[in-house]
């Protein structure tokens, strides 16, 4: 009968849990809270070897309820979290971290900082791999908060220096924050991961103190270490850093080239294209055409007027100069079977004309050159433009008509 009792207990536990789950999914926080008070009993005989034990369940459910319950207060929430921290040793750090997150989102930065410091000093036996990771995160977030304090002091100092007097104590404090922040931030960004904010803050600190080599090294490591994920932001940060440092065009281009290789649809490709177009080297201009064509392959760029005007400009240049028509031909050859339907359908002509006239102008120019004057898109837009007596559309028509032999050379 004892086993039966155990079985019944287990069954009623499960039933209770499913009621709670139901209530939570229907946003009935009060009902869920009532069931949870019953479920707490399940802690009494917690022999479960399940993936998630009852104490973790109570923590998760309780937190969710307290987030939403109308009568809950931050004080109660904090109290609950403290209890939960003592409930499961294994999850102490995790619970601390979540508590801190909630405090941060609630704007209680100081309380969050205190909690982080407390959690950092916690020791219990040997740390598991997960606990190690959590501890690193706790330190990193503390470093981040230190950075914000540093940044605050820095702003005060800057204001003061504008006024013409310096405050030694504030400066001391600021340096103190710098040291604390730098130590912790430096640690986490060595581990493979996505550490955008930490890297940004760390680089900001280093740049302020003039340690550009270290900053460059950190950014290079973050962007090019193969153990890290292919994060476009890593390249963006590096590019921005190089730009701030006033680096040569060449190194900027090479940084963006790598970004182009991993994310051809990145918004920096417009900058990249303009940079390349200005270049005197043929190879770079060629790359520029490639870049803008590749960007316009993506559905997200379909209605990007800037990109289309970049393409139109470069295509126009090539057509007028009548040099390098083979570039266009090469780019076009892998696209001619689907770009007409993707970009230059009659439906799109109508819609673009209605929604964005300058977009339709740029697109019509490209369409007229790539597909000839018989192209549906060009015909529709130029017709509408002439009907509306817009000068530039008339010019466009003239231009395409004049250069209609180009189409034959591209498509041939």
């Amino acid at each position, binding site marked *: 009968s004892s086993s039966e009792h155990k079985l019944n207990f287990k069954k009623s536990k499960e039933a209770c*849990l499913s009621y709670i*789950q*139901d209530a*939570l*999914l*229907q*946003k*009935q*926080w*009060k*009902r869920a809270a009532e069931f949870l008070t019953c479920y707490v009993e399940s802690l009494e005989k917690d022999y479960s070897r399940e*993936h*998630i034990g009852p104490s973790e*369940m109570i*923590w*998760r*459910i*309780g*937190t969710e309820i307290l*987030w*939403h319950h*109308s*009568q809950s207060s931050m004080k109660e929430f904090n109290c609950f979290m403290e209890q939960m921290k003592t409930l499961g040793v294994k999850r102490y750090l995790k619970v601390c971290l979540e508590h801190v*997150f*909630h405090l941060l*989102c*609630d*704007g209680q*930065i100081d309380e969050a900082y205190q909690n982080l410091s407390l959690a950092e000093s916690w020791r219990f036996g040997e740390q598991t*791999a997960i606990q190690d990771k959590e501890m690193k*995160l706790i330190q*990193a977030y503390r470093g981040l908060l230190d950075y914000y304090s540093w940044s*605050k002091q820095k702003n005060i100092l800057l204001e003061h220096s504008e006024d013409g007097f310096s405050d030694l104590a504030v400066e001391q404090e600021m340096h103190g924050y710098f040291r604390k922040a730098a130590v912790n931030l430096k640690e986490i960004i060595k*581990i*493979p*991961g*996505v550490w*955008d*904010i*930490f890297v*940004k803050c760390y680089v900001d600190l280093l740049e302020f103190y003039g340690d550009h080599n270290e900053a460059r090294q950190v950014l290079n490591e973050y962007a090019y270490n193969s*153990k*890290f*994920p*292919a*994060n*476009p*932001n890593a390249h963006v940060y590096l590019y921005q850093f190089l730009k701030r440092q006033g680096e040569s065009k060449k190194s900027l281009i090479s940084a963006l080239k790598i970004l182009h290789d991993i*994310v051809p*649809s*990145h*918004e920096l490709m417009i900058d990249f294209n303009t940079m390349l177009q200005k270049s005197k080297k043929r190879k770079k201009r060629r790359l520029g055409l490639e870049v803008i064509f590749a960007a316009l392959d*993506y*559905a*997200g760029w379909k209605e990007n007027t800037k990109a289309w005007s970049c393409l139109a400009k470069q295509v126009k240049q090539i057509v007028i100069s009548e040099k390098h028509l083979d570039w266009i031909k090469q780019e076009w050859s892998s696209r001619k079977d*689907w770009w007409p*339907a*993707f970009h230059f*359908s009659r*439906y799109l002509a109508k819609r673009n004309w209605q929604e964005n006239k300058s977009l339709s102008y740029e697109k019509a120019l490209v369409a007229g050159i790539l597909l000839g004057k018989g192209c549906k898109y060009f015909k529709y837009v130029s017709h509408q433009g002439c009907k509306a007596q817009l000068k530039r559309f008339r010019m466009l028509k003239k231009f395409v008509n004049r250069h209609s032999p180009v189409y034959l050379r591209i498509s041939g």
Partner: protein
Amino acid sequence: MEFPAALFPSYFGAGPPREEGGPAPVAGWGEHGQVLEGVPGRRQAQPAFVPRRGATGERWEAADAAAVPVLLPSAGCWIPSAKPQDILYRSSLCRKLQAGKTGATLDFARQLGHFFVDHPEDAFGSMGRLLHKNFYLGNSKLKRPARNSTIRMTALVEDIDRLEARRGCPRQHLASRLRWFSHLCRDWLFEVPLGLLADCLHEELMQQWSSLLFDDSLTGGALAWLPPEDEGTPVGCLVHPGGQAMNHLYFQDVVLEELPRTRGSPAQFELSGRIQQVATARVDGQDFVGVRSDYHCGVWRVPGKRGAAPTPLQVIRTDVPASCLTVSPHLPGELSVCTQSGTVYLWSIETGLQQLRHDPQTMFFRDHSPWRWSDFTGHPRVLSCADRTGLQCLDARAPRKCHFDLFKVGEEAGCQQGERVVLPMYLGRAHPSQYLVTTQFSMYVLDERLPLVPVLKWAHMMKAPPLFAHLMPGKPGRSHKVLLGASRTQELLLLQYWDSFWGVSSGGSQLACQLVGTPQKLHSIAGCLQHLPTQLPHRHHLLQQRLAAPAAGLTATLQEDGSHKSMLIFQLSEAGDVFCQRLTHNTAQPPATPLRDEEPCANPQPSPAVPSPAAALQYRCWLRAFSRACREPPRHTWPPSLSQRRLFTRRDLEGPAGPSSLQRQMRQQLRQTMEEGGRIQHREPLALQPPPLPETLEPAGDPDPLSARLTAAWAGDWEQWWEERTSFSVAQRQQALRERRRRQKRARSRRSLSASFTSSLTYQSELSELSDTGLSLLSPSRPPILSQEGSPPAGSPPVHHSATSAAPDEALLSSQSLRCHGIPKERRKTLRDYLSVWAEGPPEPPEPPGSQASQLCIPSSQSQLSSSQTRRKRPRMGF
């Protein structure tokens, strides 16, 4: 679309998942995951943080108490798919053996037996025809010349029957005769070699079992909504499968009012297979609808203008079942198809099929599932390919060279052990480079620009893996909504996520993807059962079964009518029912603090408790149509049928020499009753013997009036007994008797064709005849006493029984009398059982059971009666 300036922090590892997994019932609650500075680039006194999960979302509330049917149930009863009981071995012995073991035992032998019985032509056709003359099924001894080339099979059949009867008996000895026979003919009797057949059957059984555990053929769902081209008109088109085999494709115009209402009759196409998936995409103002069945995929075009008929464009046939069909949102008339052999095709209406990949192996590690999926990405020439282990993107222009991994079940995405991809979906309508991947544990949002690292991850806690997903993109500044749906449990979950600009005020920089609001469970189809009017128990059961049918599809639409926003969610069940529910956007109290979200908690019960009058009306209409469609009771509950071919031989019925006159009379009567297909219990006076007054058969001694009355009441004729008792006029009684006899004669002459009764006739056909006549003659004025136990079935012959008709049966059934009739001991029990069937109440509701008749000679009247209801034949093995 800009890439977020900063992503939420996360660790990145490589290799197989390390976290031990398992279904975690509450894993999705109470976690913010990570935080990020919410308004980057703006210097303030204090940084503002936003969580990865838990920020404020929109409040959507159910407008009705339960889902409401949109379409009336189609005619013809739905046949529920196989249940575990159907293919698992169940016997007490086996259960005992299995106690403690988790593995299920498939009932292989029973299924093989079913195959032989259901498809005798396929199993034994040619041998059966060849040996037809050499097997004899009769009872008489074979004559000398015939014996050289003919075997008498009767004994063998008897042995088989006996074996069947002792099924599950631990002391089961194989009859040596059977063993001898099977040994002799195992190698040549079967059309298909037995080993091969068994292999095939076993494979099929395993497949059935695995599809019972998890059926992935429905992935993607077979329901689609084609919204109107201009958002002003509230008329859209619902594309759904229907018909008994779900092989009809319907395009039904639906007007979105308070409750959606169908308009006009649907455009209908009959297809040659069950529709597993309906996929749609709108390109250049036209809808392309892809339809997948196991071996065929087709594509339709629906012009943007409503009312224009859908046009079928192309159909392809595959040798291996297709597992995926998606329609390109970029180019008109482009689709991608995957088959279970691991092949991915790009299918263009103009240029045909282009094979992109062929790999029967899974991508990242070995997994047995042949399921493959493919979808489009932000680049019209790049397609994603998925199997259970992850997703890869490949360029259709150079599929071998250009590819990258988008998602891997592994440490990269922080997966659990045993986690598998269930449904990938391109979220292009919300964000051109985002992707949704669901597994049985979690949902992930991925960005093509940052492969392998999910930008969003959340444990969805659904009880069954989400096979269906639907995206409703939000306008800029509003959240995108994703619906996840499971098949078996009909679960529906509404999630909201954000990927848009944080706000113009903050400088318009893009923020990383966040899950906002709390997940919300929506009504399932089965949930409306409690709001339907109360039903009779068996109706209730039918209804319950119907409403609990696994979900087969999901679609939804957002409707904006000025400031009033609502969401309509359609759910399709395997039975072909489409139910709908409306959620309304609650903007009454815009949440003041960013984290105290939703629920002012004043109303803990957001959805109304009772359906609105309109919904109630809809329920009633649906119910009426349902009961009309399912008037025919389910076919799987057959009344017990007994074979009587071996019940009596002629010798048995001849009996010993010199039986008493009573015995003779009884025997004759028994035989005659059986010939006529009547009932022994309701023995009528015999026409041949003018004075067979029932009284003579009564037990010796004049019964007291009380016991006579009780006997009459027991037999159900209390009313008549009373009449007889009250009418003193003997002449009157004689007159009544004569009248009855005349009626009986008339009835018999109607049935005289059935006189050519052969020993091979089964009881079943008679029962059917009786029920048939009974149904037509059932008079409404019959007193209710008749329905008591022991009374005849509701459809009894139009003859009033005599008061003591039960008595002779008793006499007949006593073992003594049976022995006197020369009926062997073993068979007495059978006979008693046989007769007791009649003593019992009506066999189930008065359904018209199809008769079983594998005999050479079927009386024409009966065959007419029984041929209308055909039932599966179960003749003896091979003959």
